[in-house]
């Protein structure tokens, strides 16, 4: 294969509708602090950014490499906890963030390397089971080693002054909004996530990414052509893990808190799976669409479910109130998940591309 020098990925959306939707989402996220003022919308926007990057890194594994990992939140948690513990113990300093990253990213890479070498040799199904086991052990460890991680309560910490909400850069309103440290943090999250996404898009369209896809389609043929399956899969796993850890660190900075529920819980793993599957496996752009839809739905649909549940309760219908209870959100997600695996294996992006050529 001739190595082509391309500054960009050379992988356009390839669908007019898709391109328009992507542009709308990007513009919305880029100007979120000014378009949607208020604490909650900004929170949702930051979460969208974080989930897009996280889901994209997972797509590298699920969509491009064709392996199912259940340990992705573990790496996300490693990054989250790395920054959280460093900031908690060293105080609100920039070098603490650096130190946290300097420990967390290599640790994530090392863990991913070990798990990959260990379990990707045999078969991918092994990998799924082993990552599930390791991730659940890690979750238990994080909630038990309370001297380090704060246990179930997690760690709340202060971020450097520049990023604190109290720091006001432009006291007068810019389009009706004051620019504070919170805005700066949002842009830190947004730019970092955008860069990570572009990096991943570049990787999957590189010769390395092509080999990954070849292995996904036909491992034996790829191996016969001289590509070492284990090495490629393990490298993909390591790369995905490092990106996930970086995203985890961003999440910790945004929330100023890290705990088992926000960084390690199995629900996040399911969310990522769902985003990637619904958005479209093996498309990268699917992460943007899936992530946006998912986070919006999570934040606004649950309220709707609560209304439906209450209405059904008043109407005296049996069972419906408990089925539509906001806590049963996962039930509908799960059904949607199964349905999308059956009926839209290529997800929304695949549908859009198929629809308009």
């Amino acid at each position, binding site marked *: 294969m001739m190595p082509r020098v391309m500054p960009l990925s050379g992988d356009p959306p390839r669908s007019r509708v898709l391109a328009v939707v992507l542009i709308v989402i990007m513009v919305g996220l880029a100007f979120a602090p000014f378009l949607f003022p208020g604490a909650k919308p900004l929170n949702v926007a930051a979460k969208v950014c974080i989930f897009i990057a996280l889901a994209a890194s997972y797509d590298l594994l*699920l969509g491009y490499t*064709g392996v*199912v990992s259940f340990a992705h939140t573990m790496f996300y948690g490693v990054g989250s906890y790395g920054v959280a513990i460093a900031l908690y113990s060293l105080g609100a300093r920039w070098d603490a963030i650096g130190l946290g990253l300097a420990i967390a990213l290599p640790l994530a890479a090392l863990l991913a390397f070990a798990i990959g070498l*260990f379990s990707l*040799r*045999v*078969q*991918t*199904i*092994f990998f*799924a*089971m*082993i990552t*599930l*086991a*390791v991730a*659940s*052990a890690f979750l*238990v*460890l994080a909630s*038990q*080693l309370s001297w380090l991680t704060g246990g179930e309560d997690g760690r709340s910490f202060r971020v450097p002054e520049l990023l604190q909400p109290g720091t006001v850069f432009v006291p007068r309103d810019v389009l009706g909004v004051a620019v504070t440290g919170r805005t700066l943090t949002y842009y830190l999250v947004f730019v970092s996530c955008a860069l990570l996404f572009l990096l991943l898009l570049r990787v999957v369209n590189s010769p390395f990414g092509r080999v990954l896809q070849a292995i996904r389609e036909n*491992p034996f043929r790829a191996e016969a052509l001289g590509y070492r399956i284990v090495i490629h899969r393990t490298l993909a796993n390591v790369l995905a893990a490092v990106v996930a850890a970086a995203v985890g660190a961003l999440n910790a900075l945004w929330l100023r808190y890290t705990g088992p529920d926000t960084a390690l819980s*199995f629900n996040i793993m*399911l969310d990522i*799976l769902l985003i990637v*599957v619904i958005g479209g496996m093996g498309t990268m752009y699917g992460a943007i669409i899936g992530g946006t839809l998912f986070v919006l739905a999570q934040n606004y649909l649950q309220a709707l479910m609560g209304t439906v549940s209450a209405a059904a309760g008043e109407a005296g219908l049996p*069972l419906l109130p*408990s*089925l539509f*209870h906001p*806590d*049963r959100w*996962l*039930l509908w*997600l*799960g*059904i949607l*998940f*199964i349905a999308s*695996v*059956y009926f839209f*294996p290529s997800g929304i992006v695949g549908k859009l591309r198929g629809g308009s050529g």
Partner: protein
Amino acid sequence: MSAQDGATDAGAALPKAQADFLPLLLPLLVAIAGYLGMWCQSFPQLPSSSTWVTLTIAGLAMGMMIFIMASGLTLIFGLMDVLNFGHGAFIAIGAYLATLVLLPLGGWMQADSIWLNLAAVVPAVIVAMAGTAVLGLAFERVVIAPVYGQHLKQILITMGGMIVAEQILYALFGPQQIPLPLPTSLRGSFQIGEAAIEKYRVVCVVAGLVVFLSMLAILNRTRIGLLIRAGVENTEMVEALGYRITRLFVGVFMAGSALAGLGGVMWGLYREQVNAAMGGELLVLVFIVVIIGGLGSVTGCFIGALLVALATNYAGFLVPKLALVTDIALMVAVLLWRPRGLYPVTSR
């Protein structure tokens, strides 16, 4: 991935399975290691052997319950090449179905008569097993059948099935834990010398042994077992010889689900409470056991379950924090020794 290293030594007349007894010694080894560990802690005195006996029996009982849950999963994987992430759901469903019978019969459970107790427990077990078997049938036909041979989709879909089942349990039974007290005649313990042995643990050990031995007998002594073993080796060949492998699949899937249900009932009684999250929690343990045993092997699964349970119990006594990672450590150790598990049966 398909057959690659299934070739065995050619030339041997009628290759007879080589007896491989080494893994059988492992549980013994772990038990001795546990004793030595307790000795280290109480050095220079000998450790109290009654504590060791209690721990060992507890480990065996837990191991048997895990084995009952895991055996179904390993058989299903061996025969159909399906890794059912929804297996945990059947465990939880079994336990919930049992509460449906046991809670209305609470009076019989608390009565001081073994017959009344049995009159409550036996129907509960039957309902749980029959219910999970029927659900297993539906799950296999509706959810898994369309994705045979596609590992990625299988994992995703069965995982989705697991989530949906768990949420439906929450919706039907509410999010709270349901207490499930042991029947009176199974409470309390036998006193053997210094050691106190809980009656229910003995029941678990016996039940586990019965399941294990009858599975071995069915697999090795009956025609169905022969077909199942042949199906594990080479599905297409069995089909070519004129057997309907699909029926076999369905049967094994139902049996495996029923075993998961039985395990769920036993676990619920052991913990004396039932909640919907138990399926997911146990699934991880079951996976570790199945991996240690070698995907598809019943004997390996049995040994793996005992190993994991014994090690967890000793470690929980000696260094409680360590008990959190013993399963993983054990799995890593076994896989370093035998990368495909203790008894890898499938050629896949």
